[in-house]
């Protein structure tokens, strides 16, 4: 054992010596791929930046490369700053996020905890639970569109339970439409949360839980002092995935409400989609897209940096 460690240590040191030569070779070998990546990622970004500084649109009669003739400096960005529709779309997106992600997290966590124990039919429940995740979002959108019709199953069940006829116009009432959309998102994405958190829970060392139990900790104490801290990294990952995904919420929502009634459920994605397809103001869209991209990247960067710092401090 020890001599293995020794070999590894010496190898690590040897690696330092060989590093410089290796690194150069590595660069040569990956160069074609790097160039490809450059072309795929960087080129569109630059193109977008370029267009975002013009009022170019596909109907302007010029190729995109000639967009400079329609140069409008930062008019698109300034416009965005005072565009009420943009701000409310942003707020709405954040609101959806604030409702859906915590709900998915808590539901997912609760389910994951249930699945820590063995019970009859666990496998079957497990498969059923994972099903929503495999449904194509557009199909899910259609399903919920049907469910929330005024003559649809949701109202039917409500009628059956309450005993009198319920005919709520879910999707045409601004605040109810919002709820319907949130329900659909929670239905579809709680399973993912469940899956990630279950993996996290199963990764908590069993003997530590036993040690805590033997020291007299009850379930809740074990949950707070052992399970949660041990799962911190995976919780951050799960939340990050869902926050990013949820920020881009589009397909289910668009099929259910198309952002309506009016702009009641218009999120950023829907907003951008409408601008692109209906208004064809591509210069403006490019500017919005860039702003979203940059602010998301910055927020994510900060979150990751903070997590890494914490982990380093802990070890």
């Amino acid at each position: 054992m020890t001599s293995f460690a020794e070999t590894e240590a010496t190898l690590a040191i040897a690696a330092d010596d060989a590093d410089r030569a290796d690194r150069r070779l590595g660069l040569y070998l990956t160069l074609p791929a790097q160039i490809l990546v450059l072309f795929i990622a960087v080129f569109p970004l630059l193109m977008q930046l370029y267009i975002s500084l013009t009022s170019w649109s596909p109907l302007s009669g010029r190729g995109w490369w000639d967009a400079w003739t329609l140069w409008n400096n930062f008019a698109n960005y300034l416009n965005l700053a005072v565009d009420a529709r943009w701000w409310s779309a942003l707020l709405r997106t954040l609101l959806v996020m604030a409702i859906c992600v915590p709900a998915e997290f808590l539901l997912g966590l609760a389910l994951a905890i249930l699945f820590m124990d063995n019970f009859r039919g666990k496998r079957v429940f497990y498969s059923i639970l994972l099903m929503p995740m495999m449904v194509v979002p557009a199909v899910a959108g259609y399903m919920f569109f049907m469910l929330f019709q005024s003559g649809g199953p949701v109202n039917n069940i409500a009628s059956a339970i309450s005993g009198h006829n319920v005919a709520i116009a879910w999707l045409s009432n601004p605040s109810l439409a919002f709820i319907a959309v949130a329900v659909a998102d929670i239905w579809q994405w709680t399973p993912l949360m469940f899956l990630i958190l279950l993996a996290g829970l199963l990764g908590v060392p069993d003997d530590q839980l036993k040690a805590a139990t033997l020291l007299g900790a009850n379930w809740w104490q074990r949950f707070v002092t052992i399970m949660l801290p041990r799962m911190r990294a995976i919780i951050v990952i799960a939340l990050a995935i869902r926050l990013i995904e949820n920020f881009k919420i589009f397909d289910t929502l668009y099929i259910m409400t198309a952002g309506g009634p009016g702009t009641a459920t218009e999120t950023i994605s829907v907003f951008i989609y409408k601008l692109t397809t209906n208004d064809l103001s591509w210069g403006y869209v490019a500017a919005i897209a860039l702003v979203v991209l940059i602010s998301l990247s910055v927020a994510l960067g900060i979150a990751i940096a903070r997590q890494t710092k914490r982990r380093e401090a802990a070890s």
Partner: protein
Amino acid sequence: MASIEFRSVTKRFGNTLAVDEASFRVEDGEFFCFFGPPLSGKSTILRLVLGLERPDSGEILFDGRPVNTVGPAERNVAMVFQNLALFPHLTAENNVKFPLIERKIDPATIGKRVGEVAEKLHITHILHKFPAHLSGGERQRVAIARALVRDPVAYLMDDPISALDARLREETRVELKRIQADLGRTLIYVTHDQEEAMSVADRMAILEGGKIRQIARPADAYDRPASDYVARLLGAPMINILDATAVGDAIELAAGAISLPSAAVPKGTTRVGVRPENLGIVPGSDATVFEVEPLGGFTVVTLQAGAERMRALLRGQPRVEPDSRVGLAVDPAAVHFFAADGQSLARPGT
């Protein structure tokens, strides 16, 4: 077959001196053991012998021929890995054959070589089996056969049995020693287990931080350690190393619990080593019994005298009560003397 010699070989990794001016000569057919704690340079020496590392300075010679620039493939040294690295999907025979097939040798020769090696290692009857169906010892033999089948000049083992449990280790090391004696090949063996090193080696090199501290037959290293470092590494329970204080005509150890006549102690002695088996217990009140640990055939008594804690290894099952006071008896002829720098000092008059 070959002798293997290092002349002032130094190897650094960055700022770390992994091997420092190592010189030794492993004789043809010898069972030579490198022994030391982790990171003392044992494995680096193996890698230098194998040709996986090049020395920064110094010379490596096989049979007197420098091999510094010879690559690992041409050195023809075989390695038996700790995990044995047998291919689980091949029979013992195909495992043994493997190094030859790789070298595109004709099938008739291969068959003959495998037969010879299998015979030598007494594995002919298990050649058709898969590794999963072999016992630990049989697997070991197959791994050695695979190392030997291409007729290497020497074979190397890096802590090959440390993964086994204590009882099995004792059996396997004896087995290894017998195999090596039968084969008469040069074997370079690395271990961190002092008992194993003393049991198997013809000669051993004791390492510390990349430096060779002593090369000797195991019994000589045990009886005449070059320094307190070597003395501490060999023997279980560990040797008692006690600070020496001159009081009048005597040298006192452990707050006066042991007293040696100055005439029996070489000049410049700052510490004295007493092996547990050379520390006797007699009626008296030199020390307090801290703990008594029966081993059955022997009894380990831990003693406290002043700030020093000592162990005595007594034969049989004597009755010694914990917390009682006992006298200590030491034969001046059986102790080791160390200078301030840790080097052993010769007994006066020898």
